[in-house]
């Protein structure tokens, strides 16, 4: 089974071209931290309150990326809030996206192609070797959003991370998304981690706007 992080990164790969869709650069980086926290929560390694996050089991999961983050968290018990940990992992720049892509290549879902544009610029692509995992992710997202049934925990998490990465537009039409905006909001609000990732992205946007204001 793919991790939440791998599923979201896979969703960002254009099925036709193999290019990575990057819609919100920094927002995506925050959201990927959220995906790792969800993976750790699903593995019963961490738990969250309305503001706090704590490690409940520091033993490794067996997944190198998750264990890197888990070990970092266990080593810094003074950081207790979800928001502080989102910032901490974000600032460490662990290249979560690169690690997920590497794992997807290893698992035979993607392959890596590197070419030159104008003989100078490196262009990377990740064409699909097996498109079924991405189709599966898209089907689960569509099911969670377009029906009123209570979704599975993983699918609730997936909706919130995909939304924060700006990837839902690659799964559903604008009409579908607009008609289900309230449902998406409900699912995104359920988890503390999602709410705090949203806060972090909003804080970043506000800081950027202030910066732009100062320049202007």
């Amino acid at each position, binding site marked *: 089974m793919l991790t939440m992080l791998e599923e979201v990164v896979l969703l960002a790969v254009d099925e036709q071209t193999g290019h990575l869709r990057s819609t919100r650069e920094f927002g995506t980086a925050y959201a990927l931290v959220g995906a790792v926290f969800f993976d750790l929560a699903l593995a019963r390694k961490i*738990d969250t309150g309305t503001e706090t996050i704590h490690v409940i089991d520091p033993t490794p999961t067996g997944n190198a990326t998750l264990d890197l983050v888990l070990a970092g968290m266990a080593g810094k018990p003074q950081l207790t809030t979800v928001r502080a940990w989102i910032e901490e992992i974000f600032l460490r720049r662990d290249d979560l996206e690169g690690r997920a892509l590497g794992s997807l290549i290893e698992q035979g879902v993607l392959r890596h192609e590197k070419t030159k544009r104008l003989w100078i610029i490196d262009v990377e692509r990740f064409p699909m070797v097996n498109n079924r995992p991405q189709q599966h992710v898209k089907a689960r997202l569509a099911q969670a959003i377009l029906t009123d049934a209570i979704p599975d925990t993983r699918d609730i998490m997936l909706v919130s991370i995909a939304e924060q990465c700006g990837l839902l537009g690659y799964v559903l039409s604008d009409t579908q998304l607009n008609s289900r905006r309230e449902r998406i909001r409900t699912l995104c609000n359920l988890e503390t981690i999602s709410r705090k990732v949203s806060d972090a992205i909003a804080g970043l946007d506000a800081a950027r706007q202030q910066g732009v204001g100062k320049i202007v």
Partner: protein
Amino acid sequence: MIEVTQETRAGWLVVGVKGRADAETAEQLEAALRSAVDQHSKVAADLGALDYISSAGLRAVLQSARAAQTKDVEFAVCGMSAPVKKVFGMSGMQHLLTIHGELPC
């Protein structure tokens, strides 16, 4: 620590939950609620004696409600203590669950 009780009242199987619902006890909570859903057509989770609920606890309640929905079982959450009510409110669980201030029976 969590304590779970079961009693039938006016056609409802009431699952009383006492203690803390967190990552350590979520599995036990979900098992108890799912077992109730397997046994009865109307299940109420009485959270009046629950002191604390974490994200793991919320997931346990929500996934039990999902199991009930799949089996066409009526599932309600009721009698929440103030701290638990606050957590439910922040997560917007009322949009997906039936929540009663008092026991429906």
